[in-house]
């Protein structure tokens, strides 16, 4: 977990993905004027590039949630 994605980056990635979903929904609805289609195209291409970059650089981050209960709860138990 050398360079974890910051929550901000994660948020903007989520937002970018959500916007892309929106654009796809707009395409699904159809009948977009050429001008709007061109604008959406340019926007989407930018978003796609940003998302790809984020995914390429993303590394897993594990945040341990400390038990609020007594120590017994956090005590590890062997299984298997």
């Amino acid at each position, binding site marked *: 977990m050398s360079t974890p994605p910051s929550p901000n980056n994660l948020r903007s990635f989520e937002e970018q993905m959500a916007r892309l979903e929106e654009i796809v929904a707009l395409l699904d609805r159809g009948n977009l004027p*050429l001008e709007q289609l061109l604008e959406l195209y340019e926007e989407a*291409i930018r978003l796609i590039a940003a998302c790809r970059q984020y995914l390429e650089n993303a590394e897993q981050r594990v945040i341990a949630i400390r038990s609020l209960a007594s120590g017994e709860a956090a005590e590890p138990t062997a299984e298997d």
Partner: protein
Amino acid sequence: MPDGVPTVTVSELTQQLQLLLEEAFPYVRVRGEISNYKLHSSGHRYFTLKDEGAQIACVLWRGRPLNFEPSDGMRVVAEGNISVRPQRGQYQLDCWSLEPDGIGSLYEAFEQLKQELQARGWFDAARKRPLPRLILRIGIATSPTGAAIHDMLTTLRRRMPAAIIYFRPTLVQGEGAPADIAQAIAELNQTDAQVLIVGRGGGSLEDLWAFNTLEVAQAIYHSRIPVVSAVGHEVDYTIADFVADVRAPTPTAAAELVSQFGLQAILEWLAAVEQRLGRELSGQLERMRQRLESIERHSAFRRFHERLHLLGQELDEFAERLDAAIVRLLQRAAERLHMVELRCQSLYPLAPLRRGFALLQAQGKFVPAEQPLHRGQQLELLRLNDRLAVRVLQRLPRADSHNEERPHVHPSIPEQPSLF
């Protein structure tokens, strides 16, 4: 009555019995079948443990751990101590814990809780929440030391490295397990996780028992965040699996489930969106082109075209006529120009030189025709291409009938008048 035996009160005797029994049985494990089971509103549980030949009153005080819901006829093993109730002249088993006795009993407990929760509607498909498509924040409640957490983290790292994982190390078997699992679910509900995975790796039915308790079922039922259960192996079904929004057969399967729209799928989706946009754009352009064409094909426009064509034809003809007129004009102008040129040429004093005439000059100046020339006079003769120095040798008579003294050009010769 024999002497030496003191008379005691009931209380004194009971006190002695109490001391005797409680010191003799500070810890017992008793196997038996439950009857007259009663869960009091205070939270204490009262029942009788019996076998073919005897019975004993039992109590399980509120707050004592219980992994299953006891019921009449269930065979259990109780742990506890013997206590005496002096007021009623009774002894009883104070249970510290109660466990189903054997697989059969566990299965009965399982079936019983399952039926009860099913009746409450906790398993209804209608209340199962769908998981978000894009999952980037995952809460996990499982043992920190088992294979399950390792498998899940490995799977998620591979399939969705962009995800943040909130890991709550959790006790998943033993006495405190149900309470800790419930606590873990509650704590993970305080995070912004989009989905919770609750589970553990495979084990015996007893090992998995915590996931068959009402306590864990309640925690899953009340979870704000959708829960994926991941308990044991594919064949293991627990109450937690039925209450959870989604049941995954194994922890690894749970990790795969929440990363369905993972790295690879997202990259593919992005590429598909990119292609789609390109197609939409070119499709739109194509549609516009076709619309234009159909407009052009429309009859009104066709007539318009025909008219345009006719107009064009007229225009062409007009242009041709115009061209011809211009050419004629130019030709005429050119002819006139040529004639002017010819005339100009005939007026030019040196033009006759081309035809062999010569011009007489004296000291660079023209010699007028009236000027007499005398013998021995130096003159210059100007020809077309050269200039010669000449001298008058002799006056000769002229061949024509004019004055021999003063030669002049005959007016009938057209070149002569135009010479000077």
